[in-house]
């Protein structure tokens, strides 16, 4: 029973190769809202299942620690790498979320309390979910959320592009978004010898966001005229991002940095 729960938690809190199922589940969700919900809920379910299984890790000394940590880091690197070549925003958001969520396993392995891990998961899930929603808006206007076809989207959809840009920055652990503090925490709980293996993740995220923004913001737009996100929608999105960042400072940043 414990093994089944552990495997299920590996699906929901993505760990290679079970992460493939997590991605299939999110991809099969109908519509942007369902995808967003899946990214938010499934990882939480994964942690819950892990705790229900009764399996506890007690820091770096555990016998499974090495292989499990390597697998978690490998998962993060793999999905970060895959995200580089992807131009469909929903898929990009999914891969980036998977890459970030996989790092939560390192916190689990370090024996962090369940509540803290669940909070960490939100740092990756919320940007992923928001990106899914905004990608849906983009698809509604342009027929798809595939960037880089015409370039210069920011020129015709300035509000939506701003939200997408900020969401993507949040997804790649840019300061002051919570992902940054979670990443600091992960670095803190990792043994010093493991930290260099985390660096490729950062490098790949940097590369990925660079390509993402290049495709989204620059170039000359050659498509048809489209209507931008409404002012109310833009403000609502901006508010969510601000609350997310401020809450991040309070819950993830201040608390963890002080502690």
């Amino acid at each position: 029973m414990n093994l089944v729960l552990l495997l299920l938690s590996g699906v929901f809190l993505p760990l290679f190769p079970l992460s493939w199922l997590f991605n299939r589940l999110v991809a099969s969700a109908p519509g942007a809202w369902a995808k967003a919900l899946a990214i938010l809920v499934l990882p939480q379910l994964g942690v819950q299942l892990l705790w229900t299984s009764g399996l506890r890790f007690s820091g770096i000394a555990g016998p499974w620690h090495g292989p499990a940590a390597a697998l978690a880091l490998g998962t993060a690197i793999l999905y970060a790498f895959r995200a580089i070549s992807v131009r469909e925003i929903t898929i990009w958001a999914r891969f980036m979320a998977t890459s970030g969520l996989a790092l939560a396993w390192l916190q689990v392995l370090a024996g962090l309390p369940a509540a803290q891990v669940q909070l960490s998961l939100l740092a990756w899930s919320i940007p992923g979910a928001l990106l899914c929603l905004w990608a849906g808006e983009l698809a509604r206007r342009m027929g798809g959320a595939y960037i880089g076809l015409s370039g210069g989207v920011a020129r015709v959809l300035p509000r939506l592009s701003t939200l997408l840009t900020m969401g993507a920055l949040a997804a790649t652990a840019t300061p002051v978004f919570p992902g940054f503090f979670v990443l600091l925490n992960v670095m803190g709980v990792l043994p010093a010898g493991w930290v260099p293996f985390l660096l490729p993740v950062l490098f790949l995220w940097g590369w990925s966001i660079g390509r993402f923004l290049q495709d989204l913001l620059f170039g000359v737009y050659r498509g048809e005229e489209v209507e931008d996100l409404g002012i109310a929608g833009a403000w609502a999105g901006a508010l969510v991002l601000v609350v997310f960042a401020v809450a991040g400072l309070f819950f993830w940043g201040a608390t963890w940095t002080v502690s």
Partner: protein
Amino acid sequence: MDSQLTLGDRLRVRSMIYVASEPIPRFWPMRTFIHHNPLFGLEHLPFEKAVEEGTRLFHGRGYLPRQEYQRYRAEGKIDDVALRRRMDAFVARSADRIPGGIDLGKWIWTLATSWPAERLVFRSEWLTGAGLYAVLHSQSGGEETAPETAVRLEAILKRRVAADAPVYMNVDRLFGTDIGATLDELLVKSCLDFFDEGQSAWQAPNREQGFFSAWKDVARRNARFLLRGLQLRQLLQLEETPEGMVAYILRLLKVPESSWQSYITRQLTRLHGWAGFIRYRSSARHYYWSRKHPADLTDFLAVRMVLGMALLQEAVRHHGAPADAEAVRRFVEEDSWGAYLRLELHEGRILPDWAHLVEDDLARRRSRNREDLARRYIRAKSRWEAVRQVKALQGLADLVGENAAQALQVLSAGEIETLLELLREWEHGEGFVWLQAMESHYITALVEKIRVPPPDPEPAKRPFAQAYFCIDVRSEPMRRQLEALGDYETFGIAGFFGIPIGYLEFGKGSESHLCPAVQTPKNLVPEIPADLDLEEEPLYGALEHVLHDLKGSVLSPFVAVEAIGLIFSLGLIGKTVAPLTYHQLRGHLDAKKPVTRLLLDKLSPDQADSILRAVQRAMIVRALAKELGIGRDQVTDDEVRELREIAMGHVPGPSTVARRLGIGETREAEFIARLREVYRVDRQETGLQMERLGRIGFSLEEQVRYVTQALLSTGLNRNFSRFVLLAAHESQTENNPYESALDCGACSGGRGLPNARALATMATKPEVRRRLRDTGITIPDDTWFLPAVHNTTTDAVELHDIEMLPARHLLYLERLRNGLSAATRRCAARRMPTLGAPGKLAEDPYAAAVMARRQAHDWSQVRPEWGLSRNLYGIIGRRILTEGVDLEGRAFLHSDDYRLDPKGRMLENILSSPLVVGEWINLEHYFSTVDVEHYGSGSKVYHNVAGRFAVMTGNQSDLRTGLPTQTVLQDGRPYHEPLRLIGLVEAPVPFVLRAVGNLVKVRSLLFGGWLRVIVLDPEDGYRAHVLEDGELQVHPASDRRSRPQNSLEEIAS
């Protein structure tokens, strides 16, 4: 490999390059910015056709977007009658194709005047009448059958993977590689290295060998190319000559010989700015840098093709791309479905919701379902195109109103297709119709503004001063303001005053041509200092040289910033915070230009030799002081003479002065080498200078001819006033690479003061006046021709050569100056508000003049003046036609009195030179406005100076050849109204036609529609005859019935 190519092959390649380069306009260096028609190479075609060809070659648009014309219409600048007439003609032409129930005239009127987007009929590949019908009636289906799809696909692929397109371009389209962009980048870097004119501190080696040869040497050792894996060495070993290399690579790429011409054209037009510059350079024999570092388009093409080949080979290795044209064709034939999907994805035309799916499929090496995927995609695309098109058609039908929507609904599939085809045809030509309708409005406005002179005007009293200004549009307000002040009479003449000169300015090493770019001056005019101390350089000048050298040094960033950075900050703060004060203070530090005279009379061979020796000796004295620190008092004339002989290679060293002052052999040799290279005291240069000296000056006959021509062509042969001002013009701006674009177009972007001085000197010479009297032009003894400069940025008019003014004239000088400065202030008051100054400045001329001066010195100012923007009219006739008429600074005004020109020769001169320059200026503005990115040069903000001869966008790009956004647009909308030049000639119709008939080029421009023409016929009651659709038609506003005349082109020819 060389041996496999025959001489015929090589010559054929060269001739193909020559032919391919014909449509590419020459691009002059920016120091002498020549306003040119970007479609100059296509002027043999009618305007409308040339615009289409320009779009094909340079990807530039030829007309404004529809919405801009709609805004002009709302502002009352479109002649609705003309617009309607053109539409009616279109409807009449299409009468037999119009579907029943459709009022096509109403549809296209609504489309043109009310449709809020640039296009109604979208570019579609899969659209069919059946598909449109199905969507219109909310039915499914309407798709083509499988065989039909396959046939259409073949046609699409043939068009999109063109056989004559460069292979790398097709590979980019099919594989999403970036060869084109990388190739441009590498080529631009190579060009920057080679063509640099002193901007780089480190120069590329062996440039004197020519572009291809020098580039080859560097490329073989270029680590950057090696790191990229470009196998250039092997390629470069295969051929020596550039034309051989081009032919070899074309064969290697298996390009069919029948396609070589178009293949070469496509390659050259890709970076047409660079190609245009190289084209100019290779044909400008007098251009110093082209003599020093020769290059032509064959070199350019060879470098491009070698780099392109190497990049293609890299793509073949990394992406498995086809290696030649044959392989590309096979690749497309073998997997046409996959090829189509590839094109859709990599050209960015794919439906976004299919993009990821297609990308995934193409990423697989083998896909069993690719054809199925492609067919499904094509169905989706076909439906999407139909939905989009039907939505637009229904939108238009709703705007048309009445029963248009119902009429659309009852059309059959075939009829819908026909309607769409008709609308597509209309949209294709709509821009040209708008253009004509807008021109029609301005033609009427001009005809109504023109003042018809009284039949017998009263004899004029002697004016206080007569002033010649350039025909430039910026002279018009100045002339109007000056005339409004009182006793001033003004004339318009091309800014080179009809005297084409090669000018050798004092202190400059090379000759500049001060005449329209279409002419090559025969006479050379050097400027000779009358009062100069060659030995002493002012302290500030010396300091400036030191700082300049320091800036170019590689070590400067490490040692100089802390030490002398503060010195630069003074200038930085001064120029930014108080530009006017800074300029005044700095003016005290700069050395004053010495008083000079122009050498205008022809020289005998002895005189020429003597002058050359004197100049060379002066240069040696200067070199001794600068290079060796030896003052004039330390050397004798004989020693200077000896140094000259050594530099010329007539006698060997060491020199007496070297022995006497203990200068070592090596040091002396270095000094002699500097004398030859820097100060140009060598045998070859002397031969060249002697040749030039033969060109110096004008014979008396020439002087008389030029003065007569200048006076008679402008209608001034009597009633001369005390002062005849010859006002050249120039601009004054800081930090502005486009500075010369604001100078005189008739002087090839130079400054016309030397021409004004030359004419003034000639016209004041007693011998010339005596001969003029013989021809019936009597210039009174108290008439003095005075050169001046009209500064178009500040509107100030500065008088020159006053020291030569007779004492009796000095009494009147104050009055003249007062009048000029009052006109300056009045002009500034009108002009400053248009440059963003507060409107109240219009009421405060003094403040406006101060602001204009500040603009001229403000280095952050991207728009110091509007220049020739908004130019529209070219009026050739007497001033009385436009005197007192506010032409808003939009007219080139050339004075002309046909009555003094019985043979029409002077009119021919005006038509063939100033009018053509006006047309170039006008079309440069036209095309820069309608497409500021392709024909213009984009925003100045991103510009960087390239090699001191042009600008690029960012750190590297094609050379930006047109006018920048800041010159033609204001707040994103056109400030310059893009219209063809509307020329008005005051002369009898047959007289004009005879003159035009004698000028092949002008006839082709007029009848090709490159400019509009009105003939104001004094012998026909001053009725205005407008050239429209190849016929002269009397304009209704000139109050007579229209009498069309046929076959005018025949009469003209």
